[in-house]
């Protein structure tokens, strides 16, 4: 018998997959230095390793009590830390949602609706995300399963239709700039995986093995993305390097029978990913606020979050230059790394110190 209000770990990782792949689909190479095409094909190795390392504090947190949350530990330290955590993670989630929305809007305005003002579209996306977030984690989890299947089918289609165009001489050898830039790329890719912070508050709502699932997830996702990068390099070569959206350039080349340009249809599937990502972030941030300030989320919370995302996105998407500066500044990765690893580690350390202190005090008496 399943428990109501909970999702399986498979559904949860499908959610994370959907959130992460949309970042990959709309990936823009802003810093080409030390991120050669050859490196991307084997990026899954440092990505998986660093990703798991970043997740260690979160895994310890949820392991302390069976599927516990960060707030279980922070509450024992001080309610102020709980509130601070709630605010920090909500702001971090807001920022991540705004960045991915801005990136998706840039993608849409470049290849799907060039010349159009897309604020209305994004507002629509945000409104739809509110409706989904309101219905809870179960809805999001089950929807993610269906969307993951659609993504899998679309990626398989793109891959199979482009296998014939693969030319291994288009590839670049890996590690041409040395190991340091390669590891740095993997580090940044892992640092950008902000979705795993959701474990800190959603763990009690997940059935099944989270730790094992996380390891498999990082590895599978990394291998899939690396394989796609490999295919992109092999098919498009230098031409692909000049494109803003690399995977899109591959979908343009997919053709089957009389259908020569299914890319618009394939990209429309990515709209589902963007929608679900926004809904997931909304829900997770609402859970952080609920945990920190002890109130029941209502539609107003989601509506305010969605308005804040829209405002932030509007600022980011003002120009491609602004957006590019923001993404390549490294601030993004620093924020996520801090929230993913540093903050939970600090809370765990503080908790440990406090327990040691009281232990010694009791021993002294």
């Amino acid at each position, binding site marked *: 018998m399943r428990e109501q209000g909970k999702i399986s770990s498979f559904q949860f990782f499908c959610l994370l997959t959907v959130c992460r792949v949309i970042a990959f689909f709309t990936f823009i190479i802003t810093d080409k230095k030390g991120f050669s095409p050859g490196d991307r094909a084997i990026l899954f190795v440092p990505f998986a390793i660093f990703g798991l390392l970043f997740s260690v504090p979160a895994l310890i947190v949820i392991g302390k009590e069976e599927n516990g949350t960060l707030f279980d530990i922070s509450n024992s330290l001080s309610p102020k830390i709980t509130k601070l955590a709630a605010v920090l993670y909500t702001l971090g989630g807001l920022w991540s949602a705004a960045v991915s929305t801005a990136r998706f809007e840039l993608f849409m305005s470049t290849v*799907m609706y060039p010349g159009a003002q897309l604020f209305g579209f994004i507002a629509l996306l945000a409104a739809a995300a509110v409706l989904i977030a309101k219905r809870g984690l179960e809805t999001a989890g089950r929807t993610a399963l269906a969307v993951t299947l659609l993504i899998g089918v679309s990626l398989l289609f793109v891959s199979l239709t482009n296998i014939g165009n693969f030319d291994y001489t288009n590839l670049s050898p890996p590690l041409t700039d040395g190991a340091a830039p390669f590891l740095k790329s993997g580090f940044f890719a892992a640092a950008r995986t902000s979705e795993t912070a959701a474990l800190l508050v959603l763990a009690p709502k997940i059935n099944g093995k989270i730790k094992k699932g996380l390891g498999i997830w990082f590895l599978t996702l990394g291998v899939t993305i690396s394989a796609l990068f490999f295919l992109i390099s092999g098919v498009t070569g230098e031409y692909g390097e000049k494109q803003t959206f690399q995977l899109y350039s591959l979908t343009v080349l997919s053709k089957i029978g009389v259908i*020569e340009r299914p890319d618009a249809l394939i990209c429309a599937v990515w*709209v589902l990913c963007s929608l679900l990502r926004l809904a997931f972030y909304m829900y997770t941030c609402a859970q952080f606020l609920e945990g920190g300030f002890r109130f029941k989320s209502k539609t107003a919370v989601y509506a305010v979050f969605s308005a804040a995302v829209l405002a932030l996105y509007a600022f980011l998407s003002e120009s491609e230059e602004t957006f590019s500066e923001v993404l390549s500044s490294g601030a993004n990765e620093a924020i996520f790394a801090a929230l993913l690893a540093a903050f939970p580690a600090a809370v765990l350390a503080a908790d440990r110190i406090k327990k040691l202190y009281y232990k010694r005090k009791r021993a002294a008496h």
Partner: protein
Amino acid sequence: MELSKSAKENAQTLKNMFGGSFDLITREFSVNGKTAETVSLDGMTDEMKITESILKPLTDDKNFSKLYSTALQIKDSAFKGTGITEEKDLFAIAEAVSDGNLALFIDGLENAFVFSVQGYPRKSIDEPQSEQNERGSCESFTDNYKDNVTLLRRRLRTPRLVFERMEIGETSRTSVLLCYLSDRTDRELLKKIQKRLEKTGIDTLPGSGYLKPFLDGRSPSLFSAAGFTERPDMLASKLAEGRVGIIVDGSPFALIAPYLFIDYFHSLDDYMSGSLYAAFIRLLRVSCFIVSTALPGLFAAACVFHPEVLPSNIMLDVAAAEAKTPFSLTFEAVAIHLIYEIVREAGLRMPVAIGHAVSIVGALVVGDAAVTAGFIAAPMLMVVALTAISSAVISKLHESVALIRFALIIIGGLTGFFGIFVCIGLLIADVCSVSPFGVPFSAPLSPFVKNAQADAVIKCDNKILAKKTQSLRELRF
């Protein structure tokens, strides 16, 4: 309301309660030396039964002895093969007479006797009109709930098949039966359904479909959590899975609760065919659902926003055809689908005698003349035709599909694929958010239940299915 000692008085009171209705028949005669009155409704009772089984024995003094009380003798010896109850309350007696029973008042007796002698006209068992099968049974439910019970009992010959009767409707007092297999159905599920039905608070119940929104409860979804069927074999198979059937007197459509999304794509013919063909047909039905829902919207979106998706030759033909028409493609799509809905509605409501005329008008005027006159483009008509045929494959979902289709056409015409896929996302979320009676509506696909996949989208061989017990318990919370 208590009975009086006078049979005549009681009969008169009953007559007044029925407002002097012409079909209320009273008979006065003598029983064992005492005055007796029968009250019944003409047309609701079996006259032969009344005469042979009640009046004749009652009026024959040989059946009675002075040694024992008349009431006792009436109950124990005089009547065989007829259901008989005693009743004190005049209101209850009135209700019993409304149900087609015969009420007998005898001077001096405290209670009246109510005899079960229903004999109202019944429709014969016919072939199902809305759920045709190639190789399945040709029997369908009728308007009479007792006949429906018999049809079901013939298919589930087990004492564990239980029928719980309740009455719904202040005025109509329609008999509603909850049927289930006691060893398979969850008690909690049954209680939930009972509770929802008891809370309806309606005055009259015109048919089983009226109960659907009450069964859906508060779940705000486009798709209903209760399905319906005209086929006893279908209901029997669903009961065997642990579901609950609801048979309403006066309606040949039984309800099934809970009804999952995947159930809309199943048919009994799947189990009579080979597994490969059945799997193919199920996938075809799913494709038809997608086509009937999304094709017009996708077509409108592709033509207006994303023409690169269309193959060159098709795009040229569409462009050339659209150049002739005065209306925009989106408007054409909406208009032609509206016309289709009108023709469909007309087909349902019109008298059979003029059916041919409407078919000709529909085919010629809409199909041919509109294109020749240049109001509608031929490619759009092709899309509509394909949509209509696909829609007929999953007719149970017609209501939801029609609404979604219109929404997608307008949204596709205004915003392209983006808007369509946002809507599809909302639809998927809608399907995934509902859990009627504790079972996820999107089960067993999402959440993924491995054991149930043998009979979900594809169908495994019957030999494999026979080894598995298809149960709702696997899917429940």
